[in-house]
């Protein structure tokens, strides 16, 4: 992990009211790697992910202490506009959430609101190709996005995120609502994007983490217990709780 750090947390804690969901987490996410967050339900992995694009801002009870740095800049600094941050740090959600509009409009929206100056049609095509969805939808860009299958919807959401040229892609269990074939396509797609984007994937599927990620972080009850190269974490876990989790005895 010697390359440039894109995202970094320093002593990050998140509290919802009285409950501490993230407890003093410090980690670095290097450029153009795929990092998986694993851990049992409620361990805080989604909350941690949402700190990276400030989506927790909309949870009134959430209190964040510590720092989140994006290329060395404090994401929660007074001069930072969260809307601006979110264009550079895109997100794909657990349940596919296309807008109830046409396939074309789903991608055009992000371009328009961010003042995209070039040809929107070209960019829509390029984004759909990058998300390996173009061949399936090129003849019906005007069709309602909600008419797509769940897997296609999720790839549309990825295309939508890619269109505005993010550096980072946050993915919150992107395949957990999908069948195995659609899951496979999402995993293939992550493989295609690897190297061009810094990707952080939350997953509760350890085989998936092992298949798609370069590095894996194991979170347990809000704490970061172990974070290293995926292969080493799965073959040689140091913490006994990590071992218990990856062997299925904890969770």
């Amino acid at each position, binding site marked *: 992990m010697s390359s440039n750090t894109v995202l970094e947390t320093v002593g990050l804690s998140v509290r919802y009211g009285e409950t501490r969901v993230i407890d003093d987490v410090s980690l670095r996410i290097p450029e153009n790697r795929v990092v998986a967050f694993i851990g049992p339900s409620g361990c805080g992995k989604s909350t941690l992910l949402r700190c990276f*694009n400030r*989506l927790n801002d*909309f949870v*009134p009870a959430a209190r964040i202490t510590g720092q989140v740095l994006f290329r060395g800049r404090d994401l929660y600094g007074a001069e930072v506009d969260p*809307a*601006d941050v*979110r*264009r550079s740090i*895109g*997100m794909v*959600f657990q*349940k596919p*959430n*296309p*807008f*109830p509009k046409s396939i074309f409009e789903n991608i055009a*929206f*992000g371009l328009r*609101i*961010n003042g995209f100056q070039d040809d929107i049609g070209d960019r829509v095509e390029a984004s759909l190709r990058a998300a390996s969805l173009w061949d399936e939808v090129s003849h019906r860009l005007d069709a309602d996005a*909600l008419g797509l299958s769940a897997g296609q919807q999720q790839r549309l*959401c990825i295309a*939508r*995120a890619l269109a*505005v040229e993010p550096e980072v892609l946050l993915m919150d269990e992107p395949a957990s609502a999908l069948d195995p074939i659609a899951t496979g396509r999402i995993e293939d797609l992550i493989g295609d994007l690897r190297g061009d984007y810094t990707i952080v994937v939350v997953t509760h599927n350890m085989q998936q983490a092992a298949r798609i990620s370069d590095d894996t972080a194991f979170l347990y009850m809000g704490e970061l217990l172990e974070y290293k190269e995926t292969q080493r974490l799965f073959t040689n876990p140091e913490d006994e709780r990590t071992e218990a989790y990856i062997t299925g005895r904890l969770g």
Partner: protein
Amino acid sequence: MNPGAAPPRGGRFEPRVAARRRAGVRFKWLCRFAVAFAVASLLVLLVHILATGLPTLSPDFLVTFPSRFPDRAGIRSAILGSLWLLTLVAAMSFPLGVGAAVYLEEYAPRNRLTNLLQTNIANLAGVPSIVYGLLGLAVFVRFLSLERSLLAGAATLSLLVLPLVIIAAREAIRAVPDSLREAAYALGATRWQAIRHHVLPAALPGILSGTILALSRAGGETAPLLIIGALTFIAFDPVSVMDPFTVLPIQIFNWTADPREEFHALAAGAIVVLLGVLLLMNAAAILIRNRYER
């Protein structure tokens, strides 16, 4: 199952299935009776109104002014007054109501003050309409010197239906799933962009049908307009918002209060027209809802 724990056995049951079923049947009939009662009384009312009112309905009745002679009296000014009034009420209550709802749902911090506001708006929806009439008389007619104008009437009725519009709009906005907002935010949308492009369009059918229902409420109101001094006899077309006016419910009230039998028939005719208008508005609300509902 826990090893060693014996499964429960040997308890005594009295299922009395037949008695339970009979109780169910009794309850079903009770509910049927309740529905039948409501429908029957409505039908009696409708049949009575239609029987007395329909014979008086004619194109002339709709386009002539009221008169002291029953055979020459019409509801032209009442229809025009109602149309003017409802248009003005819509123009006032829709933007204010939706604006308030957007603020309460999307911008307001979740704290005690917001809760207090929300509770009080719900309470306002239950305040008797005559109280709004008194408020309108004091504020619009006297203090703002709007006199007995359409504007004063519309402002009063807007106050009356504003809580209804706010409540309907809030519910519609709250029904928009957060995943939609998050999708927009995650692409770099500002709060306003998310509201403008995704929340409001998704909530619009609910907002519109709620607004139309609120307007039909306004269209049927008499008491607050009588209080602020809407006239009962108008023999000219209103041409500006500062003109005095009458509306269908007031015309009906006026004719029903007349001792002459012929005027009662005219009142029934006007009721048929008012019912028709309100039914049309309700139908429009349902149509809008069904059209956009996924």
